[in-house]
């Protein structure tokens, strides 16, 4: 038998993730390895805009996208059929992309928001924000951290979230901050598909079988009380609207409501008559539900175990 030098070809197939030494920083394995999603983009803060306020606002919008992307990605390999598995994974990917841009924008606007990492860590600011912040530092609404429930709960939540976010991103295309405006313009194209997807499934489930309708009605009732937080103006949004780079979500309510009403009417489903869950401090001020801790534990565990990006 021919002798074979195992040392010559035993290299792990994963070695490629680290790349050659000159490229190492670019091969950070947790993200999509483009170390700065805003590389070369002019991130100068416009006159009249406070960097800290802009960073807080971008973090908030980025966290909504990041946390929801993580939740939706839990459907991967679990969705009712292959097409919806792919659809939900794609929607999660779009939101993750928006999250990276928004978190990178936040870090560029105010580097103080980025958690400190050991010297020499290759982890870029957007990944540091995603993986190394503690729960109270996340500013997403509670609605996106809640567990997925069944497919009907997921569709009801996606319809409400995508309808709100599409209206918001459309308004943000005229943000005083050109970076936020560009991120929003791109997001509008993506979220249009998300809203259509959720809207079609909403109608299909409503007009499907007795069981699908029962589940949809129950799903809508599950997510409805948390939905109110999206249009409740927080301090960060008030400041953002005042400085003309952001939107007071209260001013979107009518527009969002008209779309939801149209879907409900087409589906023959009544608007739930339920009060908002929670009137005190909610997700926008870092007060999260039990589900958030478990989500973060899973999302952050690998990165936190390897702050130097190697193992």
């Amino acid at each position, binding site marked *: 038998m021919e002798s074979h030098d195992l040392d010559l070809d035993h290299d792990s197939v994963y070695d490629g993730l680290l790349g050659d030494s000159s490229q190492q920083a670019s091969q950070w394995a947790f993200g999509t*390895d483009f170390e700065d999603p805003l590389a070369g983009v002019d991130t100068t803060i416009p006159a009249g805009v406070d960097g800290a306020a802009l960073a807080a606002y971008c973090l908030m919008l980025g966290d909504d996208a990041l946390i929801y992307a993580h939740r939706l990605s839990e459907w991967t390999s679990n969705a009712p059929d292959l097409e919806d598995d792919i*659809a939900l994974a794609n929607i999660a*990917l779009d939101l993750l992309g928006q999250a990276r841009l928004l978190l990178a924008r936040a870090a560029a606007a105010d580097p103080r928001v980025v958690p400190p990492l050991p010297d020499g860590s290759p982890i870029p600011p957007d990944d540091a924000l995603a993986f190394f912040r503690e729960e109270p530092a996340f500013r997403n609404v509670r609605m996106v951290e809640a567990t997925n429930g069944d497919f009907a709960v997921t569709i009801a939540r996606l319809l409400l979230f995508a309808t709100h976010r599409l209206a918001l991103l*459309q308004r943000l295309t005229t943000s005083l901050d050109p970076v936020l405006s560009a991120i929003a*313009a791109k997001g509008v194209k993506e979220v249009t598909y998300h809203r*259509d997807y959720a809207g079609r499934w909403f109608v299909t489930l409503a007009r499907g079988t007795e069981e699908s309708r029962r589940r949809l009605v129950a799903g809508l009732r599950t997510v409805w009380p948390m939905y109110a937080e999206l249009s409740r103006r927080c301090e960060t949004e008030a400041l953002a609207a005042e400085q003309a780079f952001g939107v007071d979500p209260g001013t979107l309510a009518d527009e969002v409501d008209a779309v939801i009403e149209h*879907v409900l009417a087409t589906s023959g489903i009544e608007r739930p008559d339920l009060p908002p869950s929670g009137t005190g401090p909610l997700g926008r001020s870092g007060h999260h539900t039990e589900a958030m801790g478990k989500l973060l534990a899973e999302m952050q565990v690998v990165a936190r175990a390897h702050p130097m990006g190697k193992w």
Partner: protein
Amino acid sequence: MSSPRGGSALAVAATVTDPEMPMLTLVDLGVLRDVVEEGERVTVTITPTYSGCPAMATMRDDLRHALLDAGYADVDVRISLSPAWSSDWITEGGRRKLSTHGLSAPGPAPTGPVTLTLTPLRRPIDCPRCGSADVELTSEFGPTACKALYRCRACLDPFEHVKEI
């Protein structure tokens, strides 16, 4: 290593292909926005098709390697977010290549106010394999962010359609 010749950086960058749809160059796809050459230094600007497009890093690395191999000493790849990429930027040549490779090219991107479409989109497209117009949408989302899934009712083959955005 050959030494760079004036104006050739664009020609080199134009040979780099999309990692997900390798029949298309980055020029065909419309993501290569600018190539500026100053001596041995090249600055390339690309734009993402979708915010979460995971191919961006590979495009960046491929551009850098191609230009370094062509003899440029310093290659900087930058991102441009505005204006946002539109499927209208796929060139005529790119559309022909998609079709030759069994993919359906996008129609005109939507313009004007964003509308909610509660019924399945009806695109006037033909099967890229047999040419039949008797096709059905199986999913608005496909194997990459930029594609929808279709099936031809005539030849029964599934195919991918590059979405309009």
